[in-house]
């Protein structure tokens, strides 16, 4: 489809030399990573390492200062967030982000935006198929709520849900947009251990739907439990890349997280 330098076919998302600057501040520099089709790749790193910035640049919320982003052979640089969503790249946000003033069901219906064919004129003239499609969309929204485990909450306001369930609602909204690549920004922050364990199960189910996942997370038990590969960022640069087991042993990673002295003590 595109004549751009296409990465190898099994690579879903290819990021090359990505840099983001805020004025004189270098947020991330020369970040190169690949997400393979169907895998769960985690992006870890201490606070301020640039994980969320990388997310924002990949999904079109921030303009990169340098670097290339490709998804399934298409160049993403310069695309707006909604155009990325059309390509199947859907993200969640670090801070809980739902449509608080709307019911849970409506929240998911809003996520179904791209799955509707409705246009202004058919809506205004009240064509039959519009009403038919609305009913189909509602069924689909309920199905997604069933999957994520919020079906019983359908008629409650988004902001009325407890924190952990709001985080699930975010995932439901994102899944409604039918992603092929899902970027989750600290999905379990604020969840208790039981909720986190449930969420890890959910994530495996999401993955079994064929959705590739790029995960930013601080909860190491979760990261090590669900990821195929882990990339570690520190101060805007990638310092390690490997399987969860390799990352756990990597001295650079230990130094970044726990400090110089701890790393020496280990060695």
């Amino acid at each position, binding site marked *: 489809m595109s004549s751009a330098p296409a990465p190898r076919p099994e690579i879903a998302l290819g990021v090359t030399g990505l840099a983001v600057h805020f004025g004189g501040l270098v947020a991330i520099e020369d970040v190169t990573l690949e997400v393979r089709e169907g895998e769960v790749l985690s992006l870890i790193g201490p606070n301020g390492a640039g994980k969320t910035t990388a997310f924002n640049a990949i*999904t079109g919320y921030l303009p990169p200062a340098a670097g290339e982003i490709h998804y399934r052979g298409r160049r993403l640089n310069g695309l707006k*967030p909604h155009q990325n*969503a059309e390509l199947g790249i859907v*993200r969640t*946000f670090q801070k809980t982000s739902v*449509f608080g003033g709307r019911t849970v069901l409506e929240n998911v219906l809003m996520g179904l935006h791209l799955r509707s064919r409705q246009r202004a004129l058919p*809506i205004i003239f009240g064509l039959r198929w519009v009403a038919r499609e609305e009913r189909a969309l509602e069924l689909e929204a309920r199905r997604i709520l069933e999957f994520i485990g919020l079906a019983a909450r359908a008629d409650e306001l988004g902001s009325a849900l407890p924190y952990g369930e709001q985080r699930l609602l975010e995932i439901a*909204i994102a899944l409604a947009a039918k992603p092929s690549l899902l970027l989750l920004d600290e999905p379990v922050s604020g969840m208790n251990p039981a909720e986190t364990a449930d969420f890890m199960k959910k994530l495996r189910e999401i993955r079994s739907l064929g959705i590739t996942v790029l995960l930013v997370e601080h909860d190491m038990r979760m990261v090590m439990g669900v990821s195929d590969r882990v990339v570690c960022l520190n101060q805007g640069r990638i310092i390690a890349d490997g399987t969860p087991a390799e990352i756990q042993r990597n001295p650079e990673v230990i130094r970044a997280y726990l400090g110089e002295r701890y790393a020496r003590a280990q060695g």
Partner: protein
Amino acid sequence: MKRALTAAWLVFLFSIPLWMQSLYIIHVLVITGIFIIAAMSLNLLLGYAGQLSLGHVAFFGIGAYASSLVSLGFSVHVAPEIVVALEPKPVWMAIPAGILFAGLAGWFIGRVAFKVRGAYFVIVSISFAEVVRLVAVNWVELTQGPMALNNIPPLTLWLPGAGEHTFWKKPENYWLVLTVAVLSHIVVRRLVHSRAGRAMIALRENEPLASSVGVDITRCLVLTAVVSAAMAGAAGALYAHYVRIVDPDVFLFIYTVTMVIMVVTGGKGTLAGPIVGGLIFGLLPETLRAFEIAPELQWILYGVLMVLILYFLPDGIVPAVRKWREQVRAGVAAEGK
């Protein structure tokens, strides 16, 4: 049940001129109805999409002027040698022209102004209305300026059973305005219960999240602005052919404020809000006048009432009533146990 209630309301509203003797009250209802249509249009932009347009009267005025000019005809020198002229056209063609021009203005504002948001958009929208008003004042060859466009013809329609009919009388205009108001209400209701309306609400509630699931913000706002402006233009066109005189004062800021007050007190982002707010603030001045209260005092009462409503019901009347009814229902259910 709900459908029967709606039908009963419609029968009641349409029957008013049949038993209401006072033409003055009918006149007040016509003007109120026109303002309600304008308020409904503003509600789309302000209530659903969450964009405060303080220049909304521009669309109303553009609809009024465009429809009047098409029905009166004009001849204007755009350059020393070039004359743009239009023969008078029948009013049933003029009104759609007014709607079209207002919609185009909405498209323009949507394209240009939504690059800036929040307070900046408010300023751009006020400026837009002011510029349009200055054009109306100063382009005397086209608009007659402060001398106003006079003798605007009323609407003539071919009606089944009645043949060609001209809407001279107040009751006829009442029915006309009511019909357009009902149609506008249906358009708004369909929009907000569809993908387009959900996108507007999503944008209002959480813009980054909306774009993350594929809502094209610009496109959504432009669509909202076009529909909203066209509807305000329809109200303006109805106004022009009812009052039959249009001067640059239709662009006064106070009319925008009136629309905003109607929407906000009634309940922005609710279907019934602009209707409730419009009825209160459309009929209140006349009620006060009936009690022969001094005009200065009327304005004060008007303001006090608005402050009180917003102080006690910050979301507006309709959401407050809805909440109250839910509480009553929950209370009844609790007692039943």
